[in-house]
């Protein structure tokens, strides 16, 4: 009897550990005319790409502007690696690298047409090449091309964001209204969200166990597990979201149109 109770308790504890904890709206940070498209952190500083303002800005946890760097052309989904900021310049067809010293250099890439997202993981880099409907992925100094224009699995309709994880590459296949997952050899593995009625999957954020998707036209953020099972849909105080990030147990959601950030907590 004792053993049964103990076993039940252990099972219950394990089950509760695996249980998904919902996010709840906490507050909205108003930005001063920053229409942010991408968010990342470098050395505990939060950076946003302001597409309309052709600049990058860093803000504090109250949303106040700390620093700004100008002269980018339509910076989109930015990323950070080893203190550097990686900036896809949609209007200039280039990837800029901003060093901690604020010195700007360029990444050498195959010819791009409106890069909309970039991500670096260790020595691997992936770029969402918007008007070419493809992902460029670099590993061991060699670029490979993933995808082509189309709506079948493995094809893209204007990809806008990308993230590399230890084993896979996740792509926001924006105007096929879904997320696709690829192996690092470019093999299509999985399609997520095709049945969620998404209208423009513009931004993604992937953790060890969750996938966060911004549903731009429907003013929502959808959270799934990595198998694509929907866990939660966030709708409160979200308007035209473009990117999301978890920072210190808070979910930061960029509201492009409202020039604000919605913070959710658990």
């Amino acid at each position, binding site marked *: 009897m004792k053993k049964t109770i103990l076993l039940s308790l252990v099972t219950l504890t394990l089950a509760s550990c695996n249980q998904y904890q919902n996010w709840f709206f906490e507050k909205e940070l108003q930005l001063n005319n920053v229409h942010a498209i991408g968010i990342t952190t470098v050395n505990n500083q939060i950076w946003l790409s302001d597409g309309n303002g052709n600049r990058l800005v860093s803000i504090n946890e109250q949303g106040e502007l700390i620093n700004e760097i100008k002269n980018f052309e339509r910076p989109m989904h930015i990323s950070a690696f080893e203190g550097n900021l990686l900036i896809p310049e*949609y209007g200039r067809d280039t990837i800029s690298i901003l060093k901690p010293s604020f010195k700007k250099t360029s990444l050498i890439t195959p010819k791009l047409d*409106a890069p909309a997202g970039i991500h670096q993981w260790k020595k691997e880099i992936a770029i969402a090449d*918007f008007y070419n409907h493809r992902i460029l992925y670099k590993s061991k100094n060699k670029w490979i091309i993933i995808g082509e224009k189309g709506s079948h699995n493995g094809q893209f*309709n204007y990809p806008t964001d990308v993230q590399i994880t230890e084993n896979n590459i996740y792509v926001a296949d924006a105007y096929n209204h879904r997320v696709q997952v690829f192996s690092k050899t470019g093999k299509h593995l999985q399609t997520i969200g095709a049945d969620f009625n998404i209208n423009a999957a513009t931004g993604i954020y992937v953790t060890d166990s969750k996938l966060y998707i911004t549903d731009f*036209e429907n003013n929502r953020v959808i959270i799934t597990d990595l198998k694509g099972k929907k866990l939660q849909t966030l709708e409160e105080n979200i308007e*035209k979201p473009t990117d999301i990030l978890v920072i210190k147990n808070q979910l930061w959601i960029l509201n492009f149109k409202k020039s604000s950030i919605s913070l959710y907590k658990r």
Partner: protein
Amino acid sequence: MKHLLTLCMVVLVSFTMLSQKEYDHFQIQVDGLGCPFCAYGLEKKFKEFKGLKKIVIDIESGNFEFDYPEDKKLTMDAIIDQVNKSGYTPKIAKITRFDGFEETFTASENNAAISNKNMRTIIVQGNCEMCKARIEKSVLSIAGIESAFWNKDTKELQFTGNKSVSQKEVAQQIANAGHDNELITATQEVYDNLPPCCLYKK
């Protein structure tokens, strides 16, 4: 020596005057512009006109402004054509030439109120405010149509006008603009030319 100096001055002034370009100012209001990817895409399309300067896009209002060298003689027709060709719907356009001369363009107005009398409906596929602008404009371009309103959520297009305009004629016009409807499917080529955010699920 004096002559030489004067000559140098004259050459310098002439060179400066020659190198100072005059610019025409262009203002275009695009209907339904709402997503940054499409707005910046429109800007990219216009960069095909080499020499574009002082580009400003306001996504909220759909206003798009830029300067362009006057000696290239960019016409209103070329501007409207470029906007249409890129899949966007021009609402108002104004060119202020370098000498102050103004040219304007205004798209045909949609009647403010739609009456139930003689109202007909058709289901039309589309996603966003840009789709709305394009669908309504395509219907309004048919002679005899008085008003056209498309609802983004229900996908229902309501229109009024002369009964001699058939439902099929309206459906064909909408399909020509890139939007599948309950009667006619748009060709793949026209569909592919729609701006990214207008790519409804086929």
